[in-house]
């Protein structure tokens, strides 16, 4: 019992000194931390931070928005018209859509990188920017679409017009056809009843 008592005392003091020796050694080890704003760690090339969209390369295929588990990407597109097609991507892929809205809400983003992989044109990718805090939450929504409001309206109008023209053409064609049919029908009055054309049902 006395032996145990003395042993406890000795262990208590000895292990304290062992520990003190270690911390003493560390007193002279150079620091492993960085003085942050002045010194910055070099991020590896695969670093996953704020999302970025190379707008010119986006073809508006919506695959990133579908892949996103938190729905932080919002895309709206307008179909291009033959006379006003968007420029092809930097790799020469043709675009059929005007991307009128491409918003990424980085406040929602969970940095999972799931949106990056499906992108066929490598337009969306993660950058090494990690300082983008804002005072206003709305500022965390990044608008990547470079079209102005007016331009969007114009594209929309263009498309609507184009659509309307197409419609009108079709209607006109249908009308012409109908007229022709009517004529024909008038000519062959006695033959049969008029049937509605397939085109009309589709439209």
């Amino acid at each position: 019992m006395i032996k145990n008592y003395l042993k406890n005392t000795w262990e208590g003091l000895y292990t304290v000194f062992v520990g003190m020796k270690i911390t003493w050694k560390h007193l002279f080890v150079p620091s492993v931390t960085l003085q942050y704003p002045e010194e910055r760690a070099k991020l590896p090339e695969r670093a996953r931070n704020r999302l970025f969209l190379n707008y010119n390369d986006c073809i508006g295929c919506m695959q990133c928005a579908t892949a996103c588990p938190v729905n932080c990407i919002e895309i709206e597109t307008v179909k291009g018209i033959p006379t006003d097609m968007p420029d092809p991507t930097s790799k020469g892929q043709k675009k059929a859509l005007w991307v009128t809205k491409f918003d990424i809400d980085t406040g929602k983003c969970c940095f999972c990188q799931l949106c990056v992989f499906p992108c066929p044109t490598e337009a969306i990718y993660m950058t090494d920017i990690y300082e983008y805090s804002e005072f206003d939450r709305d500022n965390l929504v990044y608008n990547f679409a470079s079209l102005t409001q007016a331009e969007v309206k114009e594209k929309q109008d263009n498309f609507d017009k184009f659509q309307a023209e197409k419609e009108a053409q079709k209607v006109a064609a249908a009308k012409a056809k109908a007229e022709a049919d009517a004529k024909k029908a008038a000519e062959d009055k006695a033959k049969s009843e008029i049937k509605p054309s397939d085109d009309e049902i589709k439209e």
Partner: protein
Amino acid sequence: MQNYLIEIFGSEIVAYILATVPVLAFIVVFVLFAVWLERKVSAHMQDRLGPMRVGWHGVLQTLADFLKLLQKEDIVASANDKALFNIAPYVVFVTTLITYTMLPFTSIFIGSNADVGIYFVLAFSGAVVAGILMAGWASNNKYSLYGSLRSAAQIVSYEIPTALVVLTMIMLYGTLSLGDITTAQTSQFWNWGIFGGPVLGIGKILLVPFMFVAFIILFISTLAESNRTPFDLPESESELVAGFNTEYSGIKFSMFFLSEFANMFLIGAILVIFFFGGYNSPFGYLGNLLGIEWLIPIEQLFWFLGKGMFFVFVDMWLRWTLPRVRVDQLMTICWKYLIPYAFFNLLIVGLILLI
């Protein structure tokens, strides 16, 4: 010192008040420095840098923090006992401050070289408990109450080994006065308490190991009395959040802080006075060598503060090395280990002194 001041100002009251100013200023400056040191020591021991922004290597960081603390809102919860809650920090601080009157900083600056000396210091460091209990109870918070009760139990228990070792040393020096104890260890370092003090002959050699034991016991028990790791149970942040000062903020919190660090230097000073010659230089004074008389007190102040700071550093060193003991183990260390050892040490030192 007092007589000199009385002569200058012609009034006792002014002289006495002025005599306290250097001590108060010392405590404030020391705490500012010690907090910075604590942060730096901890940082470098943990491979970090610690504060680096304000001033050279952050020396003014504590000042900035202190200014921030002063500006903070003074929160008093509605369920607190307001009067006691407000008084408690000052009770703690004042009782710590009072003990400084007995410390011989140099041979000429000593608040009071009273005969009661160390007894006075022990009494008032025990009286701190009242302030801590007041803080814990007035906070009306279970964690605070636990912290203060633990603190009280701890300080009261550890007074016993402290007193036993102090008794040993008093036997050696034959006086309670801290000033006289220091003068007994004058000239060279082999007259220091740890080397048997003023005793001469065979007794000196026999005393050394027992003085060493006494030193370790006094170090541990005073460490516990000042509530530092590994005995920082009253404010053990992993169990009791912050112990008795959980509810405090702003200037009142800084009062607790001041008193904790003032206490750290106090225990360092007590150890130095008992075992390491107080303000005495280990090798003789440069002032004597050069024949400049006014240099001696400055040298003495340097040695006293230097030795005291060394023990403050050891406190910090221990704090950043060790885990915390549990409340019952705290009592085990005190009652089952320190007290018997201190007791036997007292007995043996007494026997050695008789021969």
